[in-house]
């Protein structure tokens, strides 16, 4: 199998505390992989390691065949931070055009990215005046605009209504069908069901790396929500016993 991301024995410490304990995982190319886990389980830290902005204690992260953070990858990887990171004193269009220019794309690509996240009517609005959900979509547009081979999205659908969420997920799958690899963190279970593969982490350890169906089967339930609860509780029980 040709992996877009290969994580091997990744250990990360933040503020003197070990946040990731030897994570090993693969993300196949041209797929949508969901990264799920309770709040504080290390999802954002793992994503930061993949885009190469996290200081790593041990282990390796290989992205598109290169060590994570290689200068060459900056053209091929798009990153959406969890908190929307756009310039509040620029309009949506100006934000998208700036990030487009950084990736060598033009105005047409910028306008298309703004339209793809449903913000065409607000394109001339200052980011500061957007609602929370709109602002995170503006931030998403700035990640899409470079048309990267790998998109790392940290909770891209927080604060969006169900219709918009469905639209965005349809867009993610269309991009995957065209060959883009997406790694998407979430803590909404109905989104987990839409992923091709799932990575479930709990307290910095990977407890599942499989398809949604296989995760359901392993937990012995048809309900993904219930499956996660069982896996997380089993993980907690196993740790206490050890």
């Amino acid at each position, binding site marked *: 199998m040709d992996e877009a991301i290969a994580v091997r024995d990744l250990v990360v410490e933040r503020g003197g505390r070990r946040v990731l304990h030897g994570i090993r995982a693969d993300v196949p190319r041209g797929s949508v992989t969901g990264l799920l886990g309770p709040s504080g389980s290390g999802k954002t830290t793992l994503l930061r390691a993949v885009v*190469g902005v996290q200081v790593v204690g041990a282990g390796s992260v290989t992205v598109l065949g290169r060590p994570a953070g290689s200068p060459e990858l*900056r053209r091929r*990887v798009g990153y959406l931070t969890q908190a929307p*990171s756009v310039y509040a004193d*620029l309009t949506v269009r100006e934000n998208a055009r700036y990030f487009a220019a*950084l990736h060598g794309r033009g105005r047409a690509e910028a306008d298309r990215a703004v339209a793809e996240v449903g913000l065409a009517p607000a394109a001339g609005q200052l980011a500061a005046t957007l609602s929370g959900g709109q602002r995170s979509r503006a931030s998403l547009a700035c990640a899409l605009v470079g048309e990267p081979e790998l998109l790392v999205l940290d909770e891209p659908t927080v604060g969006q209504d169900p219709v918009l969420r469905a639209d965005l997920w349809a867009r993610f799958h269309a991009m995957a069908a065209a060959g883009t690899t997406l790694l998407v963190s979430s803590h909404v279970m109905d989104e987990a069901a839409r992923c091709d593969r799932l990575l479930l982490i709990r307290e910095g350890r990977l407890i599942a790396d499989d398809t949604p169906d296989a995760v359901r089967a392993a937990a012995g339930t048809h309900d993904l929500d219930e499956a996660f609860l069982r896996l997380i509780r089993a993980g907690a029980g196993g740790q206490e016993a050890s």
Partner: protein
Amino acid sequence: MNPRILAATTGRILRQLRHDRRTVALLLVVPSALLVLVHSMYVDQPAPPGQPSTFDRVALVMLGFFPFVVMFLVTSIAMLRERTTGTLERLLTTPLGKLDLLFGYGIAFGLAAVLQAVVASVVAYGFLGLDTAGHSGLVVMIASLNALLAVALGLFCSAFARTEFQAVQFMPVVVVPQLLLCGLFVPRGEMAGWLQAVSDVLPLSYAVEALQEVGAHAEPSGTMWRDVAVVAGAAALALVLAAATLRRRSG
């Protein structure tokens, strides 16, 4: 560095400034208003025989000082915002180079500073009767160079502030000692030896000396060019230090 990315970054920073009309108005009007105030204070003071009038002496230094203090503040807050809103982390995952960002700030705020210096000089020379032996264009050049120094220092100092409150407090730390020791209040030659030594390592002292050279000599003097080179060198050094504070990876 990449010319396309540098141009996009400079344009982005100027666009941000353009959306903030109040800041632009303050940048352009405040130095001139303060010069009018200085003029009113000193207009009736008799000049010592054979010396420039007190207004000429003070206004010349002020023309160099305003861009320094304003651009230091504007830059340190702007860069702190990049750090705290996550845009810096995001930028560092794109093809943008560190120098693209730092020079982008230098060029964008440098242009704003040139405009500010031109407006203030027009007011000082045209309306307030400022008189210098040398050309007013040299004054604008030294004022703009001072602004670039302030931009570089602001980019560097923003790395040591976590909040806007802290960033603002760096102003008195970085700027006020340089103003006190630059030779405006007490001539540098009359200071205690250790104060002179401190003054000798502060870049604003050289900028002020360069301005005073323009005030006293019709042609640019060797001392002026040396001082200009020292200020430019200090700005380059601050920029290198600022680049060192931009880490792609953090904990």
